[in-house]
């Protein structure tokens, strides 16, 4: 009896390890030593920035530039430190975001300098949480730029003058989207109403849908989700009501096009954050020796890492008139005529004032 229980428990552990692990080694050793790169993340399959990072690095591996491996440690944040430690010992470049709500940066502050031969790339983390450590490179994205465009488009195509925004958590990374979204919408329509809510999770898709229904009940007809896979519930609420959704990070129309065409057809565009391209740029510069350390590298529209997806569905759903107006706005943003505020370093009162101004 006890043996069986032990066996079952062992099975449970093996199960969860298989589900969380499953790393793949790309490329083969070919005489000369290639740069070894390890992406440490919770799980792939988020259809969002983890998958984007993976795609960018996989492309480099396919070109034969690097030896690449991804480590998925799962949902257990007590594994953050040990996973990073193992990665630091084995790889030239270790890539992660701020895993475990700050655990990764805390670990790097203490330990990064004990691994001088390893470079750490921390993406989606603009703060100075790790300061002046020469082998820790912070990478940030100008999500306010891409979401300025998303907000402007939402305001252009909204008929009710009410649009929705849902965030995963209340965090600067999400606020940066929000600030851009509101300012973009207000640029087009100063009287726009933006319904803002937070799911409190990046996986609770049911809650995402609940909040979508709330926004729709307030008259919103364009819903923008910035909440990982939980945001798909928010988008589904829009689809069921015959309204439009705006995705995030990856082109979510492409993700759903093949097997969930109804949902895909309601996603007018996605606010893109091309993590993969930014990582590829940095790693290429490391390979050809042009890389120099900075406290934080920013990637935005100018670097082709921020923007919105102008795919076939966008062309179908947005009228030529609105497209022309949108392109004019994009032009102005690109050449600096329009500047967008950023939520990074913004105090809570200013942020609240911006949110209140669109109620």
């Amino acid at each position, binding site marked *: *009896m006890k043996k*069986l*229980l032990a066996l*079952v*428990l062992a*099975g*449970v552990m093996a*199960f*969860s*390890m*298989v*589900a*969380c692990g*499953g790393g793949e080694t790309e490329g083969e050793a070919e005489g000369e030593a290639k740069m070894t790169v390890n992406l440490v993340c919770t*799980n*792939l*399959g*988020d*259809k969002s920035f983890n998958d984007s990072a993976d795609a960018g690095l996989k492309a480099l591996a396919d070109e034969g530039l690097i030896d690449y491996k991804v480590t*998925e440690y*799962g*949902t257990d944040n007590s594994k953050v430190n040990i996973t990073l430690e193992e990665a630091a010992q084995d790889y030239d470049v270790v890539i992660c975001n701020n895993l475990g709500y700050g655990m990764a940066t805390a670990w790097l502050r203490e330990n990064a300098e004990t691994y001088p031969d390893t470079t750490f790339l921390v993406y989606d983390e603009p703060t100075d949480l790790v300061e002046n450590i020469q082998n820790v490179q912070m990478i940030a994205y100008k999500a306010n730029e891409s979401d300025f465009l998303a907000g402007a488009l939402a305001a252009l195509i909204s008929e009710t003058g009410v649009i929705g925004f849902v965030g995963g958590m*209340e965090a600067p990374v999400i606020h940066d989207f929000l600030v851009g979204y509101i300012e973009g919408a207000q640029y087009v329509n100063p009287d726009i109403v933006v*319904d*803002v*809510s*937070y799911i*409190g*999770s990046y*996986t*609770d*898709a*049911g*809650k*995402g*849908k*609940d*909040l979508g*229904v*709330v926004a729709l*009940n*307030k008259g919103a007809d364009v819903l923008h989700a910035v909440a990982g*896979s*939980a945001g*798909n*519930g928010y988008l*589904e609420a829009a689809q069921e009501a015959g309204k439009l959704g705006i995705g995030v990070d990856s082109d979510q129309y492409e*993700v*759903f096009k*093949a*097997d*969930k*065409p109804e*949902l895909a057809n309601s996603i007018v565009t996605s606010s893109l954050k091309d993590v993969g391209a930014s990582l590829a740029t940095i790693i290429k510069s490391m390979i050809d020796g042009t890389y120099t350390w900075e406290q934080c590298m920013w990637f935005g529209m100018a670097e082709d890492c921020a923007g919105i997806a102008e795919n076939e569905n966008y062309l179908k759903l947005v009228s030529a008139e609105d497209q022309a107006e949108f392109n004019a706005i994009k032009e102005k943003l690109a050449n600096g005529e329009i500047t967008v505020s950023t939520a990074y370093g913004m105090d809570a009162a200013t942020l609240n004032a911006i949110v*209140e101004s669109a*109620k």
Partner: protein
Amino acid sequence: MSLLSQIFDLLLTPAFAASVLRITTPILFAALGGLMARRCGIMNLALEGSMLTASLFAVIASAFAKKAVLGGVSAAQADPALVSKATTVGIIAGFIVGTLAGIAICMFLAYMAVGLRADAYLAGLAINTMATGGTVFILYMAAGEKGISSSLDSCSMPFINIPGLKDIPVLGEIFSGQNLMTYFAWICVAVVYFIIFKTATGLRIRAVGENPNAAESVGVNVKKVQYQAMALSGLFCGFGGVSLSMSYVQFFSRGMTAGKGFIGMSAMNLGNASPVGTAIAAFLFGFFDAMGNVMQSLAIPVQFVQAIPYVATLVGLVVFAIASDNKVKKLKAKQGK
């Protein structure tokens, strides 16, 4: 008080009432599952894992059944009659397979707790852990995805417009146009009431739950009755899982139960395992959950609003504890006299 009036403005709308019913659905199913288990004397902590597994299998089965009927033709190009047939088959397949998966998990717990006399709490927790990782593993095997089942074209339960009722203002907006599973959940409350109080099996389940030794002494096969009750528990968990991935939303995403099994568990405890009390408690949790959603637009910190359902759970449990304490005191006082 402008804030209070703002809150009432938000809560006194038909749309809000309708969303309370929708949000209550999976919680109610979980609570009924917990009720059946508790009535036979087992604390079923695996509600969460059972629902999660059921919601995954419902999506996989419905997607594969639909695909099989369509026979390789994409849904966009196929004949509409064939598509609607495929969708019906998909819905039925998803419902049956999802429910069976829910039952299987609860029977596994029953085998550990009843057959092997393992601690039901520990076994239940282990099953939840297994379900968290196992569902991702199976999703990866079936669809090559690790987060959400975006590549599975799964079906969803229909929304029902009730003729006559749907034209009545306010009431029609609240009670008509809900998903089939929402109506089904409330029917299940009556079914559970009937099983527990009006059938021989229900009587045996209650007897075993109250005092297994006494039941055994009059010739009741305690183990058999407990297996029966756990199968029923799994049945309702299965319904709950199906309602999550085939009506609440139309896909599976990892960890999508998000504590609903445990909230259902608290609702069942709050209702003291009586079908009506449990349903009322589940409805209250649904109400506070929905309230948390609409109150996000008010000038109250989001963190506070997000805590409302959990605070409500705690307050409910404390009130229940005090009430049942008083009851015991009164009974003791009577006996003293």
